[in-house]
């Protein structure tokens, strides 16, 4: 079995995604407040943060699904807030996305789901499409599932189909929105192994929104914490865990620390439970 984990803090190539002073509000609530973040080509950026802190909103800005109220979202040097529909489509041709709930087309078979980008975006013949889809399904250990429908698959299998679809056109950037949500430990590890295997092979830049801390640190080159609508800091996983930034310390304590803040508190809960 392949070992997960790699050397972190890779410098990477030129900036591929740059968020500059991005502000986004929904009605009166400011979700992103002057957020700036740079993601370099070939690296893995993990975005962490508590629920409702704006991780998914940040991701949606990078995907061009939301436009900022202020600031710039530069992808390949093009500002997604100001590009035309055609230019946005060109940018997205370099994207692969694994959604939190996978977003497979439930009325299509697994094969058709994975084949869709090839059918709609290339002029390949059906034989070539079949060969490529089967190759990706096999890469995801999904041989023999092509004729099944998403509803007939387990959660882990759906995620793998989603990953196969995201990677079918060999994108330059792959976005993962909570890739292991709803999966047990062994299925989560399976997804991480596949991520590691495919990234090593296809060399894509990865942006992962996750709260699977600390496991996700093994895959990250950089970790950015979103809290109170801001990127608190963007550091290597090692530096992140040792950071003195109060927001990071609090996040690390909450996610990696013990469940109870003291032995007395633990005993108190235990005794309450006995009663």
């Amino acid at each position, binding site marked *: 079995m392949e070992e997960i984990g790699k050397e972190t803090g890779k410098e990477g190539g030129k900036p591929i995604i740059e968020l500059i002073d991005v502000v986004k509000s929904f009605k009166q609530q400011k979700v992103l407040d002057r957020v700036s973040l740079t993601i370099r080509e070939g690296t893995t950026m993990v975005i962490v943060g508590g629920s409702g802190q704006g991780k998914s909103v940040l991701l949606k800005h990078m*995907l061009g699904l939301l436009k900022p109220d202020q600031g710039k979202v530069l992808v390949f040097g093009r500002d997604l807030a100001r590009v035309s529909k055609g230019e946005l489509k060109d940018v997205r041709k370099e*994207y692969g996305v694994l959604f939190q709930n996978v*977003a497979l*087309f439930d009325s299509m078979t697994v094969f058709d789901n994975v084949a869709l980008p090839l059918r709609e975006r290339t002029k390949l013949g059906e034989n070539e499409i079949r060969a490529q889809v089967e190759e990706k399904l096999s890469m995801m250990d999904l041989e023999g599932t092509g004729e099944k429908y998403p509803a007939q698959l387990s959660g882990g299998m759906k995620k793998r189909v989603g990953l196969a679809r995201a990677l079918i056109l060999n994108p330059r950037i792959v976005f993962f929105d909570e890739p292991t949500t709803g999966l047990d430990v062994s299925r989560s590890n399976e997804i991480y192994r596949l991520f590691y295997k495919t990234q090593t092979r296809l060399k894509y830049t990865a942006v992962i929104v996750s709260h699977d801390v600390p496991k996700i640190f093994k895959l990250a080159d950089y970790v950015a914490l979103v809290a109170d609508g801001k990127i608190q800091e963007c550091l290597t996983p090692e530096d992140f865990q040792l950071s003195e930034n109060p927001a990071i310390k609090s996040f690390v304590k909450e996610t990696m620390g013990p469940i109870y803040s003291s032995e007395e508190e633990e005993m108190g809960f235990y005794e309450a439970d006995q009663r």
Partner: protein
Amino acid sequence: MMKYLEKIGDDFFYYLDQAGRMGIFLFHCLLGILKPPYKLGPTIRQIHFIGARSLFVILFTGAFTGMVLALQGYYALRKVGSEGFLGSAVGLSLIRELGPVLTALMVVGRAGSAICAEIGIMRNSEQIDALECMAIDPHKYLMAPKFIAGIISLPLLTFVFDVIGIFGGYLVGVGMFGVNEGAYFQGMYSSVEWRDIHMGIVKSLVFGLLIIWIAASKGYFLHFERSGGFGAEGVSRTTTNAVVLSSVTILVWNYLITAILL
């Protein structure tokens, strides 16, 4: 008083916003129809869904509408001794008004609701976001085949409705009440003009466009619904709204087209 005014202003901007969004949506969908590549498969599948699978309900409603028209028409015409005009009364009523309107209302109930729910569920489960992120235009990929199918299917279904309705009227008028068979068809032949048929065709084309436009856009913009578009309840509420709005719009446009073309 201020609260009342605020509410009116809020409603006004909400509906203006919704109308603007739907207008832009229609523009993109029509553009999607014109933009290559042209794929026949999805359009044929939609014609099968909207058209062929509505056939049974159209046959059924068409037959009974023609029958009841003949029943009521015979009752009224007999009072003035003009039973011979039964054919023209049935034919004109069906071709100019009832055929296009009832066909459209049946398609709203059968296909319009299904389209709204399908697109709404796709919106809720991020399938439409997924399409956009794959650089696949949902207006072209999802909507254009539905629009083409609606515009093709409605006139064909209306034609079926009219023909079956005329034969339904024949069964009651000629078969039950003994109206002269020749008078039934001759009356229809001499009173129905090309402009009546033209009006029926125009109506069914417009209704086809309206049904798909309202159903698809309501589903597509489910997340903008003020009453909350998320979850199963949101989809069901939006589908109900789409059906009601489509039905009312059809009746309003029916009047407008009649007034313009008369």
